[in-house]
């Protein structure tokens, strides 16, 4: 069990927890946080598994960096949407789903 593998397993564990949260939680913000947890776990796996013993690999670093940027962008978009959704509906979750039978959007 090398340290890098330990990182990887930790990452996998984080992913599992995040996944659980993503499925189980109702509150949208919590869901978002769970998503971020999965993201972090994934990055750990990426960095941890990629150390092949020939010294540090530059590629995973670059990848993780990009990945973080992407996930920040996604989080930001999500927050904007959640905020506006809360303003309009007063709900913090997606429970009241009647979109398939309700009114269509304003065209």
């Amino acid at each position, binding site marked *: 069990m090398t340290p890098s593998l330990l990182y990887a397993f930790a990452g996998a564990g984080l992913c599992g927890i995040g996944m659980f949260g993503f499925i189980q939680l109702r509150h*949208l913000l919590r869901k978002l946080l769970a*998503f971020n947890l999965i993201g972090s776990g*994934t990055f750990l796996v990426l960095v941890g598994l990629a150390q092949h013993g020939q010294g540090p690999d530059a590629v995973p670093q670059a990848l993780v960096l990009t990945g973080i940027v992407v996930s920040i962008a996604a989080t930001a978009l*999500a927050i904007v949407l959640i905020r506006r959704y809360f303003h309009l509906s007063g709900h913090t979750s997606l429970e009241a789903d009647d*979109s398939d039978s309700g*009114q269509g959007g304003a065209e």
Partner: protein
Amino acid sequence: MITAWLMAGLLFTPLAWAVLCLLLDFSRGRLVSCLGITVQVLVSLGLWVAVAREGGFLYGLGGWEAPLGIELRVDGLAVTFILLTAIVAGACGLHASVYLAPDNAWYRYFWPLFWFLWAGLNGVWLGGDLFNLYVGLELLSLSAVGLVALGGGINALRASLRYLLAALLGSMAYLLGVALMYGQFGTLSIAGIASLLPETQALVGPGMAMALMLSGLALKTALFPLHGWLPPAHGIAKSPVSALLSALVVKASFYIAARLWLEFGHELGSTAVAQLIGGLGGAAVIWGSWLACRQSQLKQVVAYSSVAQIGYLFLLFPLTFAVSDTASLQAQQGMTLQVVSHALAKAAMFLAAGNLILATGSHQVAGLAGVSHFLPFSLFSFGLAGVSLMGMPPSGGFAAKWMLLQASLASGQWWWIVVLVAGSLLSAAYVFRIYQASFVAKTGVDDFYHPPGSLEVIPLLLALMSLGLALVAEPLLSVMALSLETGGAP
């Protein structure tokens, strides 16, 4: 040399226009974007012609080579999809420029999102390594979510949030798979991994990675039973947006999944997996069509039809696994034809549906009564697109179905024939349900709003293209085939 310029134009324009449009309001953005669309279409066309003449090539972005640089695979299939994107997205953009009311403040974000979406699509078609594909996919998903939410009410937001969550979950699963792949092989290039795979002994890690990636992509493609997010999102978005989403965005993730399967499937797949995915595809065909028949809202019908049509695409998996080369080739050709024809047809359908809704002022199917008398044009486009969806000749949908039938027969997997036939009958059921509603005689006068001619022409052109696809299928397929042959080179 000219191809380098074309590539630069292709990749640069969308991003540049996206940034430019961020600074402008909707009306000005519209003017600028029309120019951009023209450029983009011309560039795509040029690239297609170039590749069709001289064959595909690899293109290092900015002169950087892999692994740190981004290497793009410019082959026949990719340029065909780029051209398809240019046509469909261009049409949707032009349609939107008339369709969307300039006075809504939120719409100023339409053009930037539109261009980001386009950039993402191009990235996905050309991407040669797993991570670039991920980035392209994310760019695509996020702009798509933004477009769905744009200027909508609660329902639109709810749908877009649901869409966003699904997209993110899918991306993460995919990324996790990428991580596992990289951990195993130390490379991200699809071709590179494919060349390493046959020597690899431990297939558990890659197998797991493959499962994760495929599942994530399946979620993004809205494969049954992961399709729950699609109908609300596509149904509630503005019509041009729905058209973009249904025609192109879902195809991007499918495209990645298909490439992964074709490159890695032989080693990492199994008959059970192939049949399972095919089975889900088949279930999607039946389920989606059946639900489409049951919808009372026009755009929901079209949205569920997308679920069904996507199901056909996944028949690629069983039909290319452990079968003869002929069958596999036929399945691949069928799949590409299905992508192209569905993109054209569904875009036409959504745009026409938008026109119809605009004209009747009602979202309901029943609201179409009497339309066939006063508004035959949009209905006609809708009908022609429906012909393609039903897989009636001489449409592209028919050509696709024919190839898939041939593949099923050649591979001995006759049960997919049942799916194909049942699917086309069910799709006929929902298409004709709409015709029927429009043919209901309505006493009274023409109280419909008549959309401007440009709105009516665009879907008609798209529908005609989709309809005539089978007639030019052979030359088109020969260009596309350039990819599948040369795909092995790193």
